[in-house]
C-alpha cells in the first residue's frame, strides 16, 4: 500500500516508521527544515521537505498515483483539513485520515465531511472521564463511520434499573447493552442478567440517545 504522511512530528514519524516496517511504501512530508534534516537521517529518500498544503509538494510526494491513504498529521488543524480536501477532491485519494489537535475543531472536520479523524486530546479526556465514576456517562469510543458510540455507565443505588433484569428494561431504540462488569469481572449482557448497584455497564448506541439511556439506567 502507498501512503503519504503529512507532518513529520512524533505522530507522523511514528506512523511512517510503522508502515515501513509492515512493508508498505511511504512518503513523509515535513516543512520545518531542522526537523526534516533529522528525519532524513532515518527515512532517507522517503522524506520530502515542503508544505503538504501546496499542490506542487503533494505532486512531488506522488499524490497523482494516487496513494491508497493520505494521513494528515501536522500540528495544525487547518492544514490537516485542507490536505484531506486536496487529496480527496483533487486527486481521488480513496482514504484520508486527519489528526485533530484541538478537540474544539472537531466540529469543523465533521461539517466539511472529513469523517476519519483522530484526536489524542479527546481520547485522553475519555480516559480521564473513565476514572471519575460520578460522571454518569463515559464516552469510550466513537465509531464515526458506523454512526455509533460505545459508552460506559455505572449503576448506583437510586438507579431505576438496579435490581431489574435486562429483559425488563425499556431501552431506547438504537441502544443496546454489551456487557456488565461486577467486582472486576465482565460478562456479556444477557436478558436474564440482573443489574446491581456498582455495576459498570457498557452500551452501544446511536449518538443523541445518551439522555434516553441515562433516564433508564441512571436516574428517573
Amino acid at each position: 500500500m502507498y501512503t503519504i504522511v503529512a507532518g513529520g512530528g512524533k505522530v507522523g514519524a511514528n506512523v511512517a516508521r510503522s508502515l515501513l516496517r509492515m512493508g508498505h511504501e511511504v512518503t513523509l512530508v515535513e516543512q520545518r527544515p531542522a526537523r526534516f534534516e533529522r528525519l532524513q537521517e532515518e527515512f532517507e529518500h522517503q522524506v520530502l521537505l515542503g508544505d503538504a498544503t501546496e499542490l506542487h509538494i503533494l505532486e512531488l510526494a506522488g499524490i497523482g498515483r494516487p496513494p491508497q491513504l493520505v494521513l494528515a498529521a501536522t500540528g495544525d488543524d487547518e492544514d490537516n483539513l485542507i490536505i484531506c480536501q486536496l487529496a480527496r477532491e483533487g486527486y481521488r485519494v480513496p482514504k484520508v485520515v486527519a489528526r485533530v489537535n484541538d478537540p474544539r475543531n472537531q466540529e469543523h472536520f465533521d461539517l466539511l465531511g472529513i469523517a476519519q479523524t483522530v484526536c489524542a486530546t479527546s481520547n485522553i479526556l475519555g480516559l480521564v472521564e473513565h476514572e471519575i465514576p460520578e460522571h454518569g456517562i463515559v464516552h469510550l469510543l466513537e465509531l464515526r463511520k458506523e454512526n455509533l458510540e460505545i459508552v460506559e455507565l455505572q449503576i448506583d443505588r437510586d438507579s431505576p434499573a438496579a435490581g431489574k433484569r435486562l429483559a425488563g428494561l425499556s431501552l431506547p431504540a438504537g441502544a443496546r447493552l454489551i456487557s456488565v462488569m461486577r467486582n472486576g469481572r465482565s460478562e456479556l449482557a444477557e436478558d436474564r442478567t440482573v443489574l446491581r448497584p456498582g455495576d459498570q455497564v457498557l452500551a452501544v448506541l446511536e449518538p443523541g440517545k445518551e439522555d434516553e439511556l441515562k433516564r433508564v439506567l441512571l436516574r428517573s
Partner: protein
Amino acid sequence: MKLVVIGCGRVGSAVAREFRAEGWDVVAVDEKEEALTRLGPGWSGGFVVGHGMDSEILRRAGVDEADAVVVATNGDNTNLVIGQVVRKRYGIEHVVVRVLDPARAEFYAKRGMQTVSPTQTAISELAARVRVAEKAMAS
C-alpha cells in the same frame, strides 16, 4: 447591510473601513486586540477579539446575520477553512476568501468558493506591464 471581516490586518481593516464609511454595519474580528488601532480613531463598527476558527467568536461577530463575509487572516488554510465553515454552517452566500497561493485559490474557486489571490493579481499585473513594454519596443 452587514459585513463581517475576519482578520483585521492591512487588507481586512481597509475593507472594513471602506464599507463602514458607506454606512454598512461592519464587525471586524482579529486575534490581536492591537488590530483595533488599524480601524482608525473613533471606529464606530464592531470589533471582536478572537480566532475565526472559534464558533463562539463567529457567533459573537453575528456571522449568522451577515450579508457578506470577508476572510483575510494571514493564513491561507485558516481562511479556506473559515470560509467554508461560514458558508456551510451559516448558509452565507457571499463569502470572499483571501488566498495568497494561486494554486490553492484556483483549486477552491473551481469548487465554488470566491477566492481572491493577491499573488495572482501581482503576477498578472506585472506580466501585463512587461507586455506593454514589449509592444512599445516592437513599434
